[in-house]
Structure formats: structure tokens, C-alpha cells
């Protein structure tokens, strides 16, 4: 398992299904209309129950780079941090992605989270290059952990080997 220590805090790369992890909170990359949709969203709805989408419906919309929090419903996670990351090659993807990660970390702090899990935000359907996503997340999280924060552990969750490698490279200082 690849990992990086930042002071007394730690970042780890793991394989798994982020929506099925027994963590305090995990990050979900949602669309601006706050609909769970399919993929991880479908898994959240299926495993977590209707309450999560009902909570989301009260928020209206979410601008790119922003984050909001709902309960985890029947999921193993207590909270879900919903972020609206950059999508489909929109301009300034890198800057927007960093801002998205910062928003997620801020939400984690505000909710007193000690363990939070991140997927490779934007990679996959939304076409953000996997290498870029991994590097921005690792750099932004590392920077955040240097400051005062409730977070003690960040899990970078790769669904498959293809997603694992870029996280591993980024956490080892490459890329």
C-alpha cells in the first residue's frame, strides 16, 4: 500500500468501492443539479437509501468547485461530501479541481471529520486525465494537512489497478 506521512497525519492509497467503505466521510463528484445519477451516485442511492437524495434536493444547485454535505443514510460512511468538480475538458480544469478538493477538505474540517476518502475526482466519464486528478488531489491534500485540521487520515480510493497507479506515482512524488 502506498502512503505519505504529513507530520502526524497520513495519506494512503487503497483499492475498493468508495461508496462501501467504513469511513467517516467520502467525497462524491456530483453534477451541478445535485442529482445522484448513476455510477457512484447509483450505488449511494441503492445502498444509502432515499434520504440522501431528499437531502440533496434541499440544496438546489452546486457551482463548480463547491462542496456540500449530506448524511450517509444507510451507508457505512456517516457523511458524504458532495463536490462539483470540473467536467468535460472545461477551461481551467486544474485550478477548478484544486478548488474542489479544498472545498471538500474545508467541509471535512467543519464537520469534525478525522478520516475522509477521495476518489480520483473528474477522471472517468468527466474526462479529467487520471494523472492530473491524482496529482492535484495529492498536492492539495498534502498542503492542507500541513495546517490545522481535524483530518488525521486521507484515503485515496482507486476502483481498479488503472486508477491505483497514478495515485501511487503522485504520492511518491512523481508525476
Amino acid at each position, binding site marked *: 500500500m502506498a502512503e505519505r506521512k504529513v507530520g502526524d497525519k497520513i495519506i494512503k492509497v487503497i483499492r475498493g468501492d468508495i461508496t462501501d467503505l467504513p469511513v467517516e466521510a467520502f467525497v462524491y463528484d456530483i453534477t451541478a443539479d445535485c442529482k445522484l445519477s*448513476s*455510477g457512484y451516485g*447509483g450505488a449511494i442511492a441503492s445502498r444509502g437509501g432515499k434520504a440522501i437524495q431528499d437531502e440533496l434536493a434541499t440544496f438546489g444547485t452546486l457551482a463548480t468547485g463547491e462542496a456540500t454535505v449530506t448524511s450517509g443514510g444507510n451507508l457505512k460512511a456517516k457523511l458524504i461530501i458532495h463536490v462539483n468538480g470540473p467536467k*468535460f475538458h472545461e477551461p481551467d480544469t486544474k485550478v477548478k479541481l484544486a478548488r474542489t478538493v479544498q472545498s471538500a477538505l474545508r467541509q471535512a474540517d467543519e464537520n469534525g471529520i478525522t478520516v475522509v476518502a477521495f476518489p480520483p475526482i473528474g477522471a472517468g*466519464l468527466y474526462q479529467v486525465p487520471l494523472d492530473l486528478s491524482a496529482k492535484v488531489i495529492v498536492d492539495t491534500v498534502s498542503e492542507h494537512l500541513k495546517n490545522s485540521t481535524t483530518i488525521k487520515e486521507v484515503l485515496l480510493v482507486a476502483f481498479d489497478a488503472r486508477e491505483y497507479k497514478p495515485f501511487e506515482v503522485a504520492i511518491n512524488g512523481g508525476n
Partner: protein
Amino acid sequence: MSARENKDTTYKIQVMRDILAKKLTRSVVGSLVACVHCGMCNEACHYVLTHPDEPKMTPSFKADQLRKLFKYNYDWTGRVIPWWVGAKEPLSDADLEALKDIAFGTCTNCRRCTLNCPMGVDTATLNRIMRGLLSAVGVMPEGVRVVSKDQWEVGNQMGVLKEDYLETLDWMSEELVNEVGDESARIPIDKPGTEVMYTINPREAKYDPRTIAAAAKIFWAAGESWTMPSEGWDQTNFGLFSGDDQLGGASARRVYEKMKELGAKRLVISECGHGYRSTRCEGPNWVGIDQDWEMESSVFTMLRYLQEGRIRVDRNKLDRRTTYHDSCNLARSCGITEEPRELLRMVSNDFVEMVPNRAENFCCTGGGGAMSMSEYTPRRLKSAKVKADQIAATGAKIVVTSCHNCVDGLSDLIKHYKLGCEVKQLVELVADALVIEDCAVMRKSKAVVEMPKPALPLHGRRILVVDDEPDVRVFLRTVLEDAGAEIYEAPDGDHALAMARKHKPDLITLDLSMEGKDGVSTFAELRSDAEIAGIPVCIVTGHPEFRELIYQRAVPVPDGYMDKPVKDAELVDNLHRILGLAEHHKAPD
């Protein structure tokens, strides 16, 4: 960036330009520049045939959308004479939406136009590229977005969660164990070092797990060492439909990595047209890896079990007329046409061909992801009239197909056009026709499973070689005699018929294009003469286009086909297989 490009360019169009530049291989550029707009493709397209007054349905119009972009940016003609060659770019989101409607809503990428283009223009590939460009900037039907996201993030295109998948396998195991009364019939999961790893279409796990149970029953009956994976089990690949090569590679890689992890020797792909094409043919290119295991459609697996005597079937169990629908991806893109028919004839007494068939068959109209795009359903069903007419003409009560997409597409049009028949897959028919007491699992011993092979594969067989070219006859005689056969020769159709009646050979190899009585007429006479009608015939021809003529005859189809030039080993293997099948057919009677 030139002033021209600055004028109306948005970031989306720039992204599309950049991606298109990476797609411009020699073959793609060839297809972009070779179209002469002759209109030959029109007759091949089910959208054109059912929308004759809509020029936008023509394949060349669809491909022209990409040509405009190509010429505007990358072809000198577009720079010098753009008004003449139609060089143009989309200028707004409305333009992109219009392109989406064309690329996703008026084409199933079935490749029938590609096959019928005299210039070799691969319109389906051009349309797929356009889909990919649009998907990259988020312009796609909602269904495509939903399914792609499921496959990216959950690992299968129907969003089946791991616990649900495993529960379904457990359920099917229980059913099978109860049916056959043998605990060893349970479906193995993640068993390392097996002969076979079996992958499926998520539709099987989500909507119709009976096909999983049917396959499990066949593996059990054959005494196969097999497993299903807990992950990497989705052989389908929406990247083929959406044009997203990244998704294509990611999905195929999950299957390959599970194969590596489990160390299985052979990947068996359940009956699924695009799943087979994606996993067997396109996947290695998308992923950029070589693999050292075999990959095959379960059609081949079932056929092999029958040929090896590992399973036995009783075709009298099925008493309704069947026909076979060729999946576009299996038949047109992967050349799998004869094996499903051989298998079907083993389980069906009353099989009739759909016309046209094989590589010329019409799409089920549910291909290319069409079933996921509900906004185009009325247009899809209108275009399905061609297919509906094909099915109705057969009088079949069961339409058999080796593709899950086709099952859905055909079921939908059968309901819409009230055809009064049902759709089944070969795996269901074979499982239903199994004679369990004659299968390997009941013999307990592996030794009796393997059939003793003669020292020479064609030892003692008498074969009539019919060809008007002496060199070809000498070649065939040499190869077949070396394999142990006794050979008769005929230079034309009349001699062939006379010798067939006189010698009653075990098999005939028949050329199609011959001086005097040609092969097509000879074949029809052979099949019409009760005395010699049952002799297996393998067509060996240098003119594959003549095959169609054979299928237009109202006589049983040939037992095998080979295109010249033939290879020694393939010839012997094929004839050996045909002779084995002929004996298998005789056995139950």
C-alpha cells in the same frame, strides 16, 4: 490559431479538433476522403429503407458531419476551397446537439453500409469517432451518460453492485443444484487456476439470470474446470458505443487483469455481440497489451463440448421452428457466422434461414447503444420494420441470436409489430436439450471424455473433390490423402453429380465458380436428389460473394465454407469437424 478559427471557436470545438487530430490514422483519413457519394450505402441502411424521404438518414450524410470538421481543420481542400468541399465547423451548442441527434440517433454503427461500400469507406468508424468527440465535451444522450458512468464507476454498464451480483450467482447455484441434484453444480467464484473464466453481460445478472444458470449447467455437464470472477466480470463495453476509447480500455483491462489474477487458461465470453468484439478484438488495442490466453465466444465452447462428446443433446426436445439472427458485431465485424448455425442445427429440427443473413443480415436495430437512448425509440422502432419483415417471412416461432443487445432489440420489435414469436439464445437451447446421462459429468472419469483419435484425422474417409482448376485439385488431393482420406476428383458439376451418385462419398468439397455447370447449380441438384442429398458438402471457393446465391436456394445449406486460398491444417480440421457433426446428426435417429 488562425483568425478564422478564433471567430467562432468555443473550448468544446477546440477539444473536438484536438481529439480528432489524434484519430487521423491512415485508414480513417482514407474513409474521410474516399467517399464519392455514389449512394450504394443507402440500400444497406435500415434507417434509409424505412425513412426514404429523409436524406439525413443516408450513411454518407452522417459521415459528412465528420468530413466537414476534418476538411475545415486538417485537409488542404478545406483551407483552399472550403465553400466547394463543404468544410465547416459546428458554431454553437445547438449545432452540437444537432450532431448528437445524427451520430447517436440515426445510426446503430451496424457496419452494413461499410460492408457495401465499393470505396471501402468505413462509415461506422467515422460515426463512432463523431460520437467520441461529442462525448468528450459532454454532449451525449442521457442514456449514454448514465450507462457510461455506471461502467466507469461501478465496473459494469448496468450498475449492478457487487453484493447483488454475488447474490444472483448464489441464487442461480441453488436453482441448479436443486435441478440436477448435485452439489458440485454450484457456480465457482474466483477459483484460481481453472481452464475457463466465464464472463457475462450485466443484463444477465440484472434482468435474466437464467442464461447464467444455463451456462453453469453446460459447464457442469461437460465436467469443465471453470469459474466466474467476482470482479472484472462485465465483458460488455460501452466505450464501443460512446466512442470513448478510454472507457473501452478501462473496461477491457478489468477483465484481463482478473484473468491474470486467477490464472485461467481460457476466457469464455457469453453470447454477446459487442461484448465479444470489445473483449476479443478491440480491447487489446484499447488497452495496449498482449495477452497469452485464449478468448472465445461461448458458442465455440458449446460446439467444442459437443464435438468432443463431453455433452450430448437431443434436438427432438425442441418442437418449434427456429431461425437465426446474426448479430452485427459477431457476423459483420468478427466473422462468426457458421458456428452458431452448426450449434443451432444440433438442437433444432426445424431451422430456417432468415434472408438476407450472415454478414448481410440487417441490424436488430437495438445495436450501438440504441436501447439506452429512449429519446430515439419511435425512430428506432420505425427502422425496425425491415427486421420485422425478415422475421415474419421465416414463420419461425423462436428467433435465436447470440447477442444480448439483439435479444432486447428483437424482443422490442417483435412486441411492437406483433410477430407472435420469442427470442432465445443458444445457451438456453443447448441447456434445455442436454441429455445429462450421456454427458461427461455422469461418466465420472476424464478418460472416457476424450474421444479416441485415429492416427490420421481423415483415415478411411472417401472425399469427392470438385474443382475446375487442376492445380487446386492436386493440392486438395495431396493434403487430404496425407490426412488419410481416399480421394475422387471431378472437374465440373456434371461429373461431380455422376461421381457422387456412383461412389456415395462421405463428403464433397465443392468449388462455386466452374466452367460448365457451376457450383451453385450443382449444389442445388445435390441437395434435391434424395439418393445423395445427405452427403455433407463443404464449399471451397475463391468467390465468397457467391455464397449469397447458395442461401437463396430453397435447399438445406452447406455444411461448411472455406475461402481460397485454404491452409492445409484448416482444411483438414474443417472436414474432420464436418464429418464428426454429420455422424452426430445421424446418431439420435
